């Protein structure tokens, strides 16, 4: 069986390598992709949208539909993980508490859970060292990570970046909190309900901007229609429309990353994680 698998893999690999012979070489100016479409975008992107980073202009304006459905795909991925993994059953094991002042760990039976107080903190069952340095370094680091994420989203017009990357970095900052503290701390900062609302809000912002363009009398996602609301000319309106769309993408991606992490690392119970 293994030999057959190897033969198939080698054959398919050889076929793939053989077929790459027909591809145009890297950076070939005569290749079909760089003759018609790319030349138009490179020439017209700045005069039409005033966005210097052509990738952003193509992604959010010329190919706006693609990006909208990419965002929907990410939203569906988050929903899929939620439906597959989320369990609404409480863990029936005993739980562990730590006395903050002395560091003594208490093993508490299921039905004798103490009231919430500042003297005891609940700790995870599997892995709970008392890591002061890791906790505090990550707590100080998280705002800077978030600031960088906002920069990536907002500066996507001029430099590499945009909603997807910025959203992932925003989500990663919350995941950092969840890893360095515990999942309950991260859920205290941004609850499961908020995450799920934000997941939908991002897609809603994107498609809402598209629908607004229809209401203003132009095609779906034709941001030039927004110039009357934003009191700018059509070119500047397209640039601002791209920004609005990127914000929507960023919100959805951030929320989906947090949701997938929470469900994956806590086996869907969202109480104690990695």
């Amino acid at each position, binding site marked *: 069986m293994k030999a057959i698998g190897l033969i198939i893999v080698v054959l398919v690999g050889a076929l793939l390598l053989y077929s790459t012979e027909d591809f145009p070489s890297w950076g070939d100016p005569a290749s079909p992709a760089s003759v018609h479409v790319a030349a138009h975008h490179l020439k017209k992107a700045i005069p039409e949208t005033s966005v210097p980073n052509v990738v952003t202009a193509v992604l959010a304006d010329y190919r706006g539909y693609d990006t909208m459905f990419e965002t929907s795909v990410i939203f569906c991925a988050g929903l899929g993980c939620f439906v597959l993994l989320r369990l609404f059953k409480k863990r029936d094991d005993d739980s562990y508490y730590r006395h903050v002042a002395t560091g003594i760990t208490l093993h508490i039976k299921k039905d004798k859970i103490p009231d919430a107080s500042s003297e005891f903190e609940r700790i995870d069952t599997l892995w709970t060292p008392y890591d002061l340095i890791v906790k505090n370094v990550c707590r100080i680091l998280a705002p800077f990570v978030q600031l960088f994420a906002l920069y990536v989203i907002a500066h996507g017009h001029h430099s*590499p*970046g945009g909603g997807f990357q910025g959203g*992932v970095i925003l989500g990663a900052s919350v*995941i950092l909190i969840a890893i360095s503290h515990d999942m309950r701390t991260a859920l205290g900062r941004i609850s499961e309900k908020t995450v799920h609302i934000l997941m939908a809000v991002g897609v809603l912002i994107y498609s809402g901007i598209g629908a607004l363009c229809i209401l203003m009398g132009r095609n779906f996602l034709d941001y030039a229609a927004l110039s009357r609301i934003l009191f700018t000319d059509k070119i500047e309106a397209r640039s601002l429309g791209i920004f609005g769309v990127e914000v929507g993408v960023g919100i959805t991606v951030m929320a989906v990353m947090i949701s997938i992490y929470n469900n994956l690392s806590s086996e869907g119970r969202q109480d104690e994680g990695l």
Partner: protein
Amino acid sequence: MIWELDLVILILVIIAAIGAIQVKDLLGCAILFGAYSFLMCLLWAIMGAVDVSFTEASVGAGVSTVFFVAAVFRTTRRTKD
């Protein structure tokens, strides 16, 4: 594009890919996938696709490695059933 750098990174990509298949430990596999993603990110950067490279670095090397590790964390040595 500097072809020496390109060659070195391509060889490392293949080593990381074969290592990820061959290694027995799941956590090691997840880390190797992270290394693979990061090398791909370098390749995109060499080819001038900086946006793709940025996405690969944040999604591929960053968050998806965390997802892999989180999933591996919830596995056990032996199956329960």
